[in-house]
């Protein structure tokens, strides 16, 4: 099926894009298009005006600045996958990037577009939650910073206004004793998650968990925080027992739905397993434990 007809605008600066979003009636932002193009074609979305941001070069970045890892709206999944900075310092992002969709889609789809799409099966939202990340939006009234926890409201629904453009998502640069990881269960290469868990652990000098962040994919109506497991980890020393307890708490807090790929009880069990694995990787990457056998 063809999309309904629309007007296509191609701004070349953030300022121009924001004034277009403000002045046009019912505009939709087009980024990588890997979610939006099929929605347009099946007429699940019928905007009269499309604001295509692919020509805004100032949004094409992935770098550390001012204590944050900043991912500009035009950074593609593949840019994260092939970044030396990510490979060196951001374990969870390095884990997740090659597991998002397939090579063609990663060449075109963006991290920010995926966050904006707010699909509960999207991978990046869980990492924003785990790392205490933020969404930076620009609208008629200037810049607004939205914490990840306040961003995702419902499936495909966020706290972003229609006339706002997300310019970047960002997470704090990891401290010395910090490690992160992402584990994803899927039926086959290239698929969305059946369940996914992202973890970020920060330790103090004595190897005690100072802060824990856990975000879950595809097991609730949005990307979701496993706050009970986080609370349980904080102030404790890492051990297999501790991680097992955290895994159970994460599973209890998840609300997966049964579908043709697995029933809810199975997916809950997988949240438990994936949480334990991600915690193990994160603690190992932080340099506080060394595992001798794989879990």
């Amino acid at each position: 099926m063809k999309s309904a007809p629309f007007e296509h605008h191609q701004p070349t600066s953030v300022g121009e894009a924001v004034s277009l979003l403000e002045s046009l009636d019912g505009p939709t932002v087009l980024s990588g298009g890997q979610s939006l193009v099929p929605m347009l074609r099946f007429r699940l979305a019928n905007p009269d005006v499309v604001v295509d941001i692919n020509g805004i070069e100032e949004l094409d970045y992935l770098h550390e600045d001012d204590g944050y890892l900043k991912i500009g709206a035009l950074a593609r999944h593949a840019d994260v996958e092939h970044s030396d900075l990510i490979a060196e310092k951001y374990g969870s992002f390095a884990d997740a990037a090659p597991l998002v969709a397939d090579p063609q889609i990663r060449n075109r789809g963006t991290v920010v577009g995926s966050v904006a799409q707010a699909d509960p099966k999207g991978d990046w939202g869980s990492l924003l939650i785990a790392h205490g990340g933020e969404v930076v939006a620009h609208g008629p009234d200037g810049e607004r910073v939205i914490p990840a926890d306040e961003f995702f409201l419902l499936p495909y629904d966020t706290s972003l206004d229609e006339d706002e453009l997300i310019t970047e998502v960002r997470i704090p640069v990891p401290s010395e004793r910090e490690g992160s990881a992402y584990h994803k269960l899927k039926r086959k290469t290239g698929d969305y998650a059946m369940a996914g868990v992202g973890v970020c652990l920060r330790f103090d000098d004595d190897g005690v968990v100072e802060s824990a962040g856990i975000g879950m994919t595809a097991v609730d109506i949005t990307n979701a925080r496993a706050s009970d497991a986080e609370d349980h980890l904080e102030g404790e020393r890492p051990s297999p027992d501790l991680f097992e307890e955290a895994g159970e708490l994460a599973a209890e807090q998840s609300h997966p739905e049964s579908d043709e790929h697995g029933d809810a009880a199975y997916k809950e069990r997988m949240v438990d397993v994936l949480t334990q694995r991600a915690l193990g990787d994160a603690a190992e990457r932080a340099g506080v434990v060394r595992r001798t056998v794989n879990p």
Partner: protein
Amino acid sequence: MSETREITLTVNGTEQTIDVEPRKLLVHAIREDLDMTGTHIGCDTGNCGACTVLVDGEPLKSCLMFAVQADGSAVETVEGMEDHPDAVDDLHPLQEGFHEEHGLQCGYCTPGMIMSGKALLEDNPDPSEAEIREAISGNLCRCTGYQNIVKSIEYAADKLADGERDDAEAVAADGGVAADDGPAEFDGYDVDGDGEFSCGAENCCGGPSTDATHRGGDER
């Protein structure tokens, strides 16, 4: 019908100017406006990869992009392969590979597979089996079981490497020793433990893959 816009694409090296509606997908512009039907439409949802083309050298799914977004870009489709500088006797080594190694049955996925293979070999001329499988992971084939597609791309990689070696030799000296490419004698199964299974038939499928690659974080 909404207003059309004039766009210019350099398709397989030739500049083409067409008028398209903004809602026209790149794959439809290629097939309908440019009359190049080598690029297939399989799924319409971004899943199958039959519509894969290279845009400015990168493999993309042309059903997930509007034609106006490719304005000013270089687009490569399967039709450009035979005229490619690496092509010998009307076939690019990748096409020859799919022919020699029986890399297709119905052929529906083949143009997409070839374009993904081309992008891979340009980036990584000597890929491992795992790297080939990763590169074609966005391309579905319902017929072959993939073994022979992997072999076809390996064939092309070898052939392109040979070509380069030949070129280097031709420059260095007048002649050079031709590699012994004669048919290998039948030696049954994987007796030498090199991971290559062969049943001995000319058209062996390569047997079941025992290559259990496991990458961190991926519990497939």
